């Protein structure tokens, strides 16, 4: 069965500092990987996705993620965070491109310090 682990429940970063959110997955075949962001009281918005090809994928809002098969990881990065990036971030894995639904990690709560 597929699973996703986000080892950090909370992360605090100073505004302007770089960010890396960790995600590890367990999946038998080639995974389809996603990062979503959820602001308080809102639904989930897709930041980026990886299906195949270049292992470094660019997303919206200046985010990027790198797929590392050897480490079963898909970490999310941003070179300089803004206060508006404070939110909950979810990593997810799906088969068939997620067409049959996604398995989500428990999320990482990002706090931005002024």
């Amino acid at each position, binding site marked *: 069965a597929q699973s996703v682990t986000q080892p950090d429940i909370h992360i605090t970063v100073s505004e302007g500092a770089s960010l890396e959110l960790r995600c590890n997955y367990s999946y038998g075949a080639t995974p389809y990987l996603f990062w979503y962001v959820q602001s308080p009281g809102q*639904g989930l918005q*897709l930041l980026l996705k990886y299906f195949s090809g270049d292992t470094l994928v660019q997303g919206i809002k200046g985010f990027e993620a790198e797929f590392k098969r050897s480490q079963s990881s898909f970490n999310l990065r941003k070179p300089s965070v803004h206060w508006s990036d404070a939110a909950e971030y979810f990593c997810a894995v*799906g088969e068939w491109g*997620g*067409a049959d*639904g*996604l398995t*989500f*990690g*428990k999320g990482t709560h990002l706090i931005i310090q002024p």
Partner: protein
Amino acid sequence: DARVTQTPRDKVTEMGQEVTMRCQPILGHNTVFWYRQTMMQGLELLAYFRNRAPLDDSGMPKDRFSAEMPDATLATLKIQPSEPRDSAVYFCASAQQGNAEAFFGQGTRLTVV
């Protein structure tokens, strides 16, 4: 601006009452997902439909939950009878077949007292 619409946004109900949550998927999307979000379990897939046909509802408690798509513009999730442990945020998401990006609604926050 195409979006998934869920109603109601908030619902407080007493234990034992019937609850119906509604979702209007994005026009042209033929796949609809229902997810439940709780602090303890995180986001769980309850059920999903493709072309209005239920494909998988294994994540849903069968005895009290039911999901339907009466037409292409409406998906419903019903709980009868509701219990306090059903308190959660229920999300609907829709996608176009062949495109893995699922668009989420803003959710229905259900509180069962």
